[in-house]
């Protein structure tokens, strides 16, 4: 077996102290192979985004073991390791600087990491996400939601990462635009051999993008399943089964049987 690209063992994350302490993530473990796309599913407050932020280095208050590409993650990460892990956020209206042009948004990470030939890289990054050179000097407010999310993806890819963390990348988009962005993400993973961790509340999106996934609730992984388990209804935990039923649409009888978890 090849060495995993992402390794997480007994990861715990808590916020606050004493009586106000919230255990957002409780001893979660999973590993993701190179080139794999792994899903984290759950409702709000389940801890799925908290895991992603810890992996990205945006939350230093965690305990347990995390490693990326064989390198153990510690408090201070070397710049080369930071470059390998990039993130695409949920809301393309909030994650792009409103006063920076697309060109500046894309060249800033290059400057930080000391890349050369910025111009060629910015052009190539735009082309890769299906935006022409005409988009280079536009501001975010001159772009549609789907175009903004493409810029956010281009920004994540411009540092040539190995791991891309996707936090609800399409939940703010219309379904027709969601299809375009998901297709783009699928193509990019194949072309560039990327490893994805995708966080979503939408079982359909996760089943489409990921072979394996963890279903989370209040900081625990209640079940780890495959996309085939979902389509064939092979789920063991009552909560995951409820989530699956809920994602199939409105059904009075099924809703009456919902439990509180």
């Amino acid at each position, binding site marked *: 077996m090849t060495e995993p690209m992402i390794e997480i063992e007994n990861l715990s994350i808590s916020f606050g102290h004493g009586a106000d302490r919230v255990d957002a993530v409780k001893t979660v473990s999973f590993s993701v192979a190179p080139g794999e796309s792994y899903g984290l599913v759950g*409702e*709000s407050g389940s801890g799925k985004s908290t895991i992603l932020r810890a992996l990205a280095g945006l939350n230093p208050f965690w305990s347990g073991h995390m490693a990326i590409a064989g390198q153990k993650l510690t408090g201070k990460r070397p710049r080369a390791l930071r470059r390998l892990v990039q993130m695409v956020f949920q809301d393309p209206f909030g994650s792009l600087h409103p006063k920076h042009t697309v060109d500046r948004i894309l060249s800033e990470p290059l400057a930080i990491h000391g890349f050369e030939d910025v111009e060629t890289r910015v052009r190539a990054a735009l082309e890769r996400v299906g935006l022409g050179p005409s988009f280079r000097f536009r501001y975010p407010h001159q772009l549609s*939601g789907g175009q903004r999310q493409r810029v956010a993806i281009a920004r994540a890819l411009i540092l040539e990462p190995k791991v891309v963390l996707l936090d609800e990348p399409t939940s703010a988009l*219309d*379904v*027709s635009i*969601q*299809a*375009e962005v*998901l*297709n783009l993400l*699928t193509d990019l993973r194949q072309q560039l051999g990327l490893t994805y961790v995708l966080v979503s*509340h939408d*079982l*359909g*999106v996760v*089943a*489409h*993008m990921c072979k394996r996934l963890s279903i989370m609730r209040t900081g625990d992984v209640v079940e780890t399943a495959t*996309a085939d388990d*979902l*389509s064939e209804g092979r789920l063991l935990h009552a909560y995951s089964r*409820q*989530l*699956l039923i*809920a*994602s*199939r*649409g*409105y*059904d*009075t009888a*099924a*809703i*009456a049987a*919902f439990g509180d978890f």
Partner: protein
Amino acid sequence: MDKGPILEVDKLNIRFNTPVGEVHAVRDVSFSMGREKLAIVGESGSGKSQTGRAILGLTPGKVTADKLAFHGHSLLNLTPPQWREIRGKRIAMVMQDPKYSLNPVMTIGDQLLEAARGIKQGAEARQHALGMLASVRIRDPERVYRAWPHELSGGMGQRAMIAMMLMAEPELLIADEPTSALDVTVRLQVLAILDDLVKTRHMGLIFISHDLNLVRTFCDRVLVMYAGQVLERLTASELEQAKHPYTRGLLVCPPEIDHRRQRLPVLQRDPSWMEPVS
């Protein structure tokens, strides 16, 4: 109870004056509805929310229509006192996100009482409010009555807001993406509450949504909007037999759990969909 339509809309148009010229946001939308669940579906910018707002006179745009009538009474050119008799009392609206539409500096109870102002007073209004909170399946109405909006979860806040809209027992409820901000299981529970209310109180419900698959299982009839026009009208159960390529495109492009595809079909937008529908 009268049998006629609750709401009749004929050739509704909404225009906005912008620095770059006039935007014709809603074009010749016509429909009529009774005590049923009518869905208006479309993508962002299709004009679905503006249509809902125009019914309550809440759009900042310029509204014109051949007919916009509630129980046969025209809603065009009403005076502010006339609007006050209708808004919130006979036609109510549920907004998308309880985080922004509840007043953060008033308790839920006070907001419920405010909604009943001029209808019920004092202890009677309080009892009515607690009853409404119970009817949207809030288990501890007393606690929620005393709570501030920030102390409630999204699902709880949305239920409180629905209770608020029902204080005056309206005949028509306009719900603009009432469940988009909620988790899937909570979303279905809130829908079940709306469904019950439509049945037990004989209300009409206009359900504005971008989610065709949800609408298919929840509503009775569907209007599909694109670029300000109604492109197609369907019975919800016959949505699968939709003829218009836009509706068909919307139906197939979300990823499905049971039917996984390597690539998702992408909507090919045809400029002719923008042309006036005859």
